[in-house]
């Protein structure tokens, strides 16, 4: 039986990688993927705790996270398409309508 911390460390690493990805990449879709990765890292933590605490709630919660992720995927991608139509590129730098 592996100790709980191992799983938590892995999810922490994945979460950190996701953060780095979001902050450094310019491509909107890759940023989107990194966000997905961060969400999954969190799911992993949930399920790890669910197992070690013997409480099913963790896993139910993962369900909700998934639905959110799905909804987000739908809307996010629609946004990117709309943005692409508008700006011919999905580079995050171009999203500067609010720029001074």
């Amino acid at each position, binding site marked *: 039986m592996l100790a709980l911390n191992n799983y938590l460390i892995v999810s922490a690493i994945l979460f950190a990688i996701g953060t780095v990805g979001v902050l450094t990449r310019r491509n909107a879709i890759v940023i989107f993927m990194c966000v997905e990765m961060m969400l999954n890292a969190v*799911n992993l933590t949930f399920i790890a705790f669910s197992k070690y*605490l013997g409480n099913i*709630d963790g896993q139910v919660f993962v369900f909700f996270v998934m639905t959110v992720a799905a909804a987000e995927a739908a809307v996010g*991608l629609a946004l990117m398409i709309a943005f692409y139509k508008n700006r011919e590129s999905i580079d995050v730098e171009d999203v500067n309508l609010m720029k001074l």
Partner: protein
Amino acid sequence: MESIFFFVVAAVAVISGILVVTCKNPINSALSLVMTFFCLATFYVMLDAPFMAVTQVIVYAGAIMVLIVFVIMLLNVKTETVKRGSHAVISGTVIGVFVLFQTCWFLMKGSMTGQVGVMDKAMVVKSGHVELIGKALFTDFLLPFEITSLLLLAAIIGAVILAKKKI
């Protein structure tokens, strides 16, 4: 033996995670993300949550990644030519490292309280994982369940409107 397997899968997951972030072509990063999802699925299995693993694979790998790859293809996104300014990359990684450092610091200081709930490996095996989740989902978490349906409805409408109209 089991820990070895765990480390292998963990290594694969981390490497594919890094690949997602580093490789130029979005397709490669999409595929490496799929690879991460599979590793996670195996973790779920190891954590006695078989149904979650399956759902993970179906929903994430199956649906969301397909959607992303489809969008990549639709917008035929070229490989990224211009790298983000060095200044931005460094600050990004620094923040990432900080996040990692802080969570590890928590893990070291924090300690698990031990078994609280009633569920354990035997019960999962005896009554099956799906039944357990189903019971929990439709009793304790009925309200959130209904709200998520609303959420999905909103997302669908949103997606249709956004993608259709010429902004």
